[in-house]
C-alpha cells in the first residue's frame, strides 16, 4: 500500500465530492433557481444604464449571488453525511483533517464555473456584452471566494452536528444581509451612511465591484486588488476555522 500525502488526500476528497455532481450534472442548476428567478423577474425592472443594457450591471452581481447561494448551501451535504454516518467513517480513515476541508472547499469552484457559464450564455443574446478575458479574470477571483464561503458553510455544518436547525438558521440569517449589503440587487452608493459602512465591511462588496468592472472589459487595478485581498482573506479564514473544526470533529 503506497503512502498518501496532503495532496493525494485532497485529490481523493475533491474527486469524491465532485462525483455526485458529475453523475447528476443537473444538480448544479438546482441551487441556481433563485438567482435565475432574479435574473428573469427582477432584471427587466432595472433601467438601462448609459451605453448598454442593465444586464451589463446586473449579470456580474447575479454570478456572485449564484456562487453565494450554492456555496452557502454546500454544508448541508456534509451535515447529512454527519447524520447518516458517512462523515464518521471518513474520520476513521487516514485522510488528513485539513484535506477533508480543503478538498471539499475546492470542489465548490466547479459548480461556480458551470453556473457562471450558464448565466453568461443565457444573458448574452439579451444584450449582455461578453468580454471573455474579463469574465475569466472575474471567475478566478470568485473561485477563491467560493473556496472560502464553502469552507465556512462546512464549518457551520460541523458546528451544527447535534442541532440541525442551527445550520439553516445561521445560513438563512446571514445569506440575505450579505447579498443586499454587497449591492447585488440594488446599488448601495445612494444608501444611508450606516448602510454604506456595513457594506464596506462586507468582503463580497469588493468582489461584486471588481466583477462588474471585469465583466465589462475594464481592469481597474485597485478595485481588482481589493477583491483579491477580500477573497483571499475569506478563503484563509474559512480554511483555518474549517480545519480547526474538522480536527475536533468526532
Amino acid at each position, binding site marked *: *500500500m*503506497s*503512502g*498518501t500525502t496532503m495532496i*493525494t*488526500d485532497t485529490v*481523493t476528497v475533491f*474527486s*469524491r465530492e465532485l*462525483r*455526485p455532481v458529475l*453523475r447528476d450534472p443537473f444538480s448544479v442548476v438546482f441551487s441556481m433557481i433563485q438567482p435565475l428567478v432574479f435574473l428573469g423577474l427582477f432584471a427587466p425592472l432595472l433601467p438601462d444604464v448609459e451605453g448598454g443594457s442593465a444586464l451589463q450591471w446586473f449579470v456580474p452581481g447575479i454570478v456572485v449571488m449564484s456562487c453565494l447561494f450554492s456555496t452557502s448551501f454546500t454544508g448541508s*451535504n456534509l451535515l*447529512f*453525511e454527519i*447524520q*447518516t*454516518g*458517512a462523515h*464518521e*467513517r*471518513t*474520520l*476513521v*480513515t*487516514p*485522510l*488528513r483533517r485539513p484535506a477533508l476541508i480543503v478538498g471539499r472547499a475546492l470542489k465548490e469552484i466547479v459548480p461556480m464555473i458551470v453556473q457562471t457559464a450558464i448565466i453568461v450564455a443565457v444573458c448574452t443574446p439579451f444584450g449582455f456584452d461578453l468580454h471573455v478575458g474579463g469574465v475569466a479574470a472575474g471567475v478566478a477571483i470568485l473561485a477563491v471566494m467560493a473556496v472560502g464561503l464553502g469552507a465556512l458553510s462546512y464549518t457551520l455544518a460541523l458546528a451544527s452536528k447535534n442541532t440541525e436547525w442551527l445550520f439553516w438558521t445561521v445560513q438563512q440569517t446571514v445569506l440575505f444581509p450579505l447579498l443586499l449589503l454587497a449591492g447585488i440587487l440594488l446599488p448601495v452608493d445612494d444608501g444611508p451612511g450606516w448602510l454604506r459602512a456595513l457594506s464596506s465591511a462586507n468582503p463580497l462588496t469588493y468582489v461584486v465591484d471588481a466583477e462588474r468592472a471585469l465583466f465589462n472589459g475594464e481592469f481597474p487595478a485597485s478595485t481588482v486588488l481589493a477583491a483579491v485581498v477580500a477573497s483571499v482573506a475569506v478563503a484563509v479564514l474559512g480554511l483555518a476555522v474549517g480545519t480547526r473544526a474538522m480536527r475536533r470533529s*468526532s
Partner: protein
Amino acid sequence: MNATMIQTSGLTRHFTVKKQTVKAVRGLDLQVEEGELVALLGPNGAGKSTTLRMLTTLIPPTSGTAAVAGYDVVVQQREVRRVIGYIGQGNGAAHSQRGRDELVSQGRAYGMSVRESRARAAELIASLDLAAVADRPVSSLSGGQKRRLDIAMGLIHAPRLLFLDEPSTGLDPQNRANLQEHILKLRAEHGTTIVLTTHYLDEADAMAERVIVIDHGTVIADDTPARLKAEHAGDLITLGFASASDAARAAARLDALAGAAVTAAGATVEVRVAGGSRLVPGIIRDLDAAGIAVESTAVNRPTLDDVFLNLTGRSLREGAVGNSGTDTVTAEEVAA
C-alpha cells in the same frame, strides 16, 4: 505471528452533559491478541461504543492509554487509522453517492491506486452480493444492502483489525444471520482480529470466542461464552406440578441438591443448577418415590442474559430490541 492487537490501561472517558460529568468509561484494562474475535456485550449506555470510539481515534480518552497494533491512539492516530477498519452504527457510504464510487474513494483514502481500488471494490461487491445495486445511489438501497455496503467499505484495505459497532442493529433476522456469516468467513479466511459491540445476546453467544461484559463503563466479566455461563449461571430446570402444595413439597426436597438455587411459584418449581439435563431423570425418580408427581419438565441452558443478571442483578433484555429469548435445548413434556 501472535501479537497484542489492543492494549488499554486505565482507559477512561468522561462527557459533560448539561454541566454534569458522565463517566462513560471508567478505567478499562483490556488486552486483545491478534486473531481473536471479541464481543463487547452490555446494555445501552454501558460504554461499549465510547470504548470503540476511543480505540478508533474518533475521540481522545480523558485519561489512561490505549495502543492499537502497537500504536498509541492519541499520539499516532494516522498509524492506527491505517491498520484498522471501522464499521460504525451509521452508514459508511454517503446516501448521495453510488456504492462503487464510495468503495473506490475509500480505497484511495488508504493510499491504494485507482486500479487497485477498483479491483478490490469489484471483489467486495461480488463477495458481499452487491452487484445488482453497486451502481445505484446508496439512498435507494434497502437496510440490509446498505449494511453489506458498510461492511465492504470497512474491508476495502483488508484491515488486520476490524471494529464493528452494533453491526446488526436494525436488521431483520435473516440479514443478521447473513451478516454474522460474512464476519465469521472473513475471520476464517484472513485471520482478521475482530472486535464488535452488541446488545444482542445470541449474537455474542453465536459468534464470539470471547465475551467481555461491560456495565457502567467497566469490565465485569471476560471469558468464553461457555465458561461465563458455567461460572456465573447454571441450567434452569422448570418442574410443573398438579398443585401448589406438591410444588412446595418438591421444593423442600430439592433444596438438598448440591449447588442448586430453588424457587417455587404456584404449581411451578425452578431449579438453577449446573448440568441440569443430566439431573432431571434422577429428580423425577426421587420425587416419584416420595409420592410427588411431576407433570412437566423443561431444561433451559443458561444464556448470557442469565450471566448478566447474575453479575448485576439486572436483565440485559430490558430496553434491548429483538428476540433474545432463552436458548432452549431440551423442553420435553414428561407425562407423570
